[in-house]
């Protein structure tokens, strides 16, 4: 199903994916740092769980870039 729907990334899509990777990276670091400095174990666990979610999101975004790599044209197109 994926390959049928797959089209080369537009410049806009590429920028959104790259910006999203930065957002996820920041959230991942914030969650990890918060988990490390928080005293309540229950909240600490939730922060660690959030960190895993953001790590997963980063992987999804990076995979999307890789999946579109071969489809990208070598030259600018009209």
């Amino acid at each position, binding site marked *: 199903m994926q390959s049928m729907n797959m089209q080369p*990334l537009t410049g806009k899509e590429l920028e959104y994916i790259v910006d999203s990777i930065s957002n996820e990276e920041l959230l991942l670091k914030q969650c990890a740092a918060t988990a490390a400095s928080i005293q309540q174990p229950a909240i600490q666990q939730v922060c660690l769980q959030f960190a895993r979610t953001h790590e997963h999101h980063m992987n999804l975004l990076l995979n999307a870039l890789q999946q579109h790599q071969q489809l990208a044209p070598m030259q600018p197109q009209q």
Partner: protein
Amino acid sequence: MYPQNNMSFMPAEDLLHTILADLKRTVGEYTTATTESNCSSVRQMFTDLTNDTLRAQGDLYRLMSQNNMYSASSKALRVDLDKQIQEARKKQQECQQFIQQKSSSAGGYGQPMHQQGQPSHQHNPYYM
């Protein structure tokens, strides 16, 4: 010198607030990215990320709320609610009149609107 106490560089409440604020900003960007997508697989990915991030934001809000770290804004007064309902009904009536006028000149657009906030059970699977 920094004060020698057991405080981290920010209180837990502030740290969680910054995460919550970034989740709100990120979910807004994911929504925009979804609407700006051309490739359907990219759109699907951004739709999933929007939903996932909204869920995370809601979970964190609930956690903070339960730990008295966040309070919702004050409750809307009955008098304000009454006033807004009255204005919304007026708008609805004006809209219905507008649609009736238009439907008399354009055939096939004569379906009456749903009345008084009844939920619509119509389902359009093709929304792209």
